[in-house]
């Protein structure tokens, strides 16, 4: 056995769902102590491949060797025994359970069936200290931040003694700080001899931490490359199969009159404390205002209040001249609001309904889609067909259910619906979450197009890149307040990062300048 040993060797893996081939003769190997990135468009088959490795799916054909031995991974239990643990794209946590319960589930410490919570908690604390994974073992999962939920997921695999970890899009829901932290954790894990497969759509993350990268396109492996010698552009091109542009092309903004005016708005969170505290800001026609901030600083509540899904406790909101404070969602929509909701499956779509019904979800009661309370399916269909065509929503037909669409296409359908209503203000909350670069590119283009047509856009995203590239101005939220509003072209990532951490603007500028100097010196030395 050589020093650099393959802990995983997957060869010729094929997985068919009915007649559809999600994985087609894929090969992948993972070396000990390596971080191996897996890159591919939405639906390329990455999760499928990893689900096979973690025992959730059985391959139609192909071989898997773990640490040199040919194995059949028939269940998650078997994967566990082999030391394979997976952090899933959609968290696999039981909301109503505590952190400890979630971690020990399936591997409970017990005497005669009676759970020994104390010793489990102790072990979790030790693990969490060892890897710097801060969690509160007795908190309920529904009450902790997304970042902590992720750490719980990682602890789950470590608790089971996994030394091969699979991360499926782990950063999609994290703040920059949390991402930074996660990268550190991953390095620490590999330093301890663990091996990691990382699925991500973010090329900079791949560059940052991984050693090698395997690119998958339409279920087939394209190539495995050494990350240090490959540029981001090359990776992206390989993935999509054509050349992609990253820079968002946009003219300078030409803001006109005020469209949205928020005045001293306060919103209580469902458990009763103020999540948004006396916020005031404006969005003008022809500009994109970005809202940056770490998850949980009141952004969601702000948007819920603006769109009428929750009530504010004080303050005023005006949209295009009408007072929409605490009005019902429909009134607000009619006053000119378009809204791409943060959680597309919970709020944006009625999954079991057809695409055409979903596309008219906001307008079904208006002419020509209905008349005196009767729906006009002819018009609804014509309209849906037009939008599907125009926004390139990939679906066999408008009569298929929204559930049958992939996430990216679901999002496109929502965007089509909201933009087509020609709203004077579009709120886009995390519009590209979990989408591949191609889809992201498209959505950004549409947002800017909207702006250029003289509409106002409010873009909320935890993705700093996105906020910086797409917005004209950026409002940074911290602890329920807007700590500062800066021009996008006059700021940088570090400054925003500090603002998001609650450092006031003047202070942040000062720090950034000092840091910059330091960095320059460090760089020049190396």
């Amino acid at each position, binding site marked *: 056995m050589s020093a650099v040993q393959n802990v995983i060797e997957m060869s010729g893996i094929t997985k068919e769902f009915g007649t559809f081939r999600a994985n087609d003769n894929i090969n992948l190997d993972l070396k000990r102590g390596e971080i191996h990135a897996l890159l591919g468009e939405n639906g390329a088959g990455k999760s499928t491949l990893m689900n096979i490795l973690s025992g959730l799916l*059985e391959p139609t054909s192909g071989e898997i060797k773990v640490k040199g031995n040919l194995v059949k991974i028939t269940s998650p239990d078997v994967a566990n025994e082999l030391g394979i643990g997976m952090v899933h794209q959609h968290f*696999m*946590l039981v909301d109503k359970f505590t952190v400890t319960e979630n971690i020990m589930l399936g591997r409970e410490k017990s005497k005669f069936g009676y759970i020994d919570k104390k010793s489990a908690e102790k072990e979790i604390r030790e693990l969490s200290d060892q890897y710097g994974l801060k969690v509160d073992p007795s908190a309920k999962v529904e009450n902790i931040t997304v970042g902590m939920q992720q750490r719980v997921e990682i602890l789950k695999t470590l608790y089971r003694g996994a030394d091969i970890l699979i991360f499926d899009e782990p950063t999609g829901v994290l703040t920059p700080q949390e991402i930074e932290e996660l990268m550190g954790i991953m390095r620490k894990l590999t330093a301890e001899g663990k091996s990691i497969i990382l699925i991500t759509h973010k090329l900079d993350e791949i560059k940052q931490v991984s050693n090698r990268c395997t690119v998958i396109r339409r279920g087939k492996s394209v190539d495995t490359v050494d990350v240090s010698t490959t540029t981001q552009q090359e990776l992206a091109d390989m993935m999509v199969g054509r050349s992609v542009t990253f820079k968002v092309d946009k003219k300078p903004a030409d803001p006109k009159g005020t469209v949205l005016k928020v005045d001293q708005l306060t919103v209580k969170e469902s458990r009763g404390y103020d999540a948004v505290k006396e916020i005031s800001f404006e969005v003008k026609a022809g500009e994109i205002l970005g809202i940056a901030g770490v998850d949980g600083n009141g952004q969601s509540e702000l948007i819920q209040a603006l769109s009428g899904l929750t009530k504010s406790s004080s303050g005023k909101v005006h949209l295009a001249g009408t007072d929409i404070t605490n009005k019902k969602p429909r009134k607000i929509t009619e006053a000119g609001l378009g809204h791409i909701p943060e959680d597309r499956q919970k709020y944006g779509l009625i999954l079991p309904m057809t695409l055409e019904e979903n596309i008219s979800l906001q307008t079904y009661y208006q002419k020509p889609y209905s008349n005196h309370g009767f729906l006009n399916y002819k018009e609804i269909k014509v309209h849906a067909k037009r939008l599907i065509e125009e926004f390139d929503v990939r679906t066999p037909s408008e009569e298929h259910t929204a559930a049958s669409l992939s996430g990216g296409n679901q999002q496109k359908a929502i965007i089509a619906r909201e933009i087509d209503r020609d709203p004077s203000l579009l709120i886009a909350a995390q519009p590209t979450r979990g989408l591949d670069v191609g889809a992201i590119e498209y959505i950004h283009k549409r947002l800017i197009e909207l702006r250029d047509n003289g509409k106002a856009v409010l873009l909320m995203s935890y993705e700093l890149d996105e906020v910086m590239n797409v917005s004209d101005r950026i409002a940074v939220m911290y602890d329920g307040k807007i700590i500062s509003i800066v021009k996008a072209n006059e700021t940088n990532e570090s400054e925003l990062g500090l603002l998001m951490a609650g450092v006031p603007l003047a202070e942040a500028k000062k720090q950034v300048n000092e840091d910059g100097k330091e960095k320059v010196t460090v760089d020049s030395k190396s």
Partner: protein
Amino acid sequence: MNTIGILQLIVSSSLIYAAPLIMTALGGTFSERSGVVNIGLEGIMVMGAFMSAVFNIHYAATFGGWTPWFGLLAGGVIGILFSLIHAVATINLRADHIISGTVINLAAPAIGVFLTRAMFGAAQTGPLPESFGRDSFFLLDRIPIIGPIFFENTSGPAYFGILVSVIAWFVLFKTKFGLRLRSVGEHPHAAETLGIKVYAMKYSGVLLSGLLGGMGGAIQAQAIANEFGILTIAGQGFIAMAAMIFGKWNPLGVMGAAIFFGFAQSLSRIGVYIPIIQDIPAIWLLVMPYLLTILVLVGVIGRAEAPARLGTTYIKSR
């Protein structure tokens, strides 16, 4: 009647009514905690009542005073068999839980009476030779005041139900099995990724509901009706379901809710002996248990939180 007498009466007559409900509602709790709605409890009770009656009649000579307790087991066993139908239908065959439960409710009385006719030549079994009777708890009944109120000449099955509630609570919240069962009702996918056998857990939940529901029916037959007939189970399964929701799927809460139903029923029956209450017009007393339940639910308890994935079919990804 003196105060202690009234109190003892209220307690014991509440427990009479509550005993079958407690067991059945606990059964429902296990099933729903595993994510399977079980509106078939009524039917399961019918089968439990039927089986225990048959057992009682056939084996009274063999087991003497212990017959009802073995009959309880027999009711539980048939309940398990019957709930197996529900389990197969909802878990493997992906049937809608409500449809399957309705099937059980439709089929059970028909089968019960069909078989009773076949075995006894009549639609009723006739009186059972051994019934549960009354129990006093050794020593506990000597405690002043509390003793006579709670532990003297009281319903054995009800205390059995209370004991089972405590065990059920312990099992559900303190053991490995309970944690796994609940995880399956909340997030079966997560459970599966952790190597938990989702189907097996769901089966356990449903079969436990059969066991306990069957026992509930057996209590109704052997402690109250003292026979089996089409009228032996007349809506108790539905009330038990209400108790389960009322008790928020927590065995102790469920037990409390069942006793509350017993209490409310009891007030309307024995209210005539209690000053003030006896002046309320009869119709109000009759509808009071139901209205009181609604009021308590609205005013005090509020929103009931069901297991997150209750009623949804889990499809293994393969």
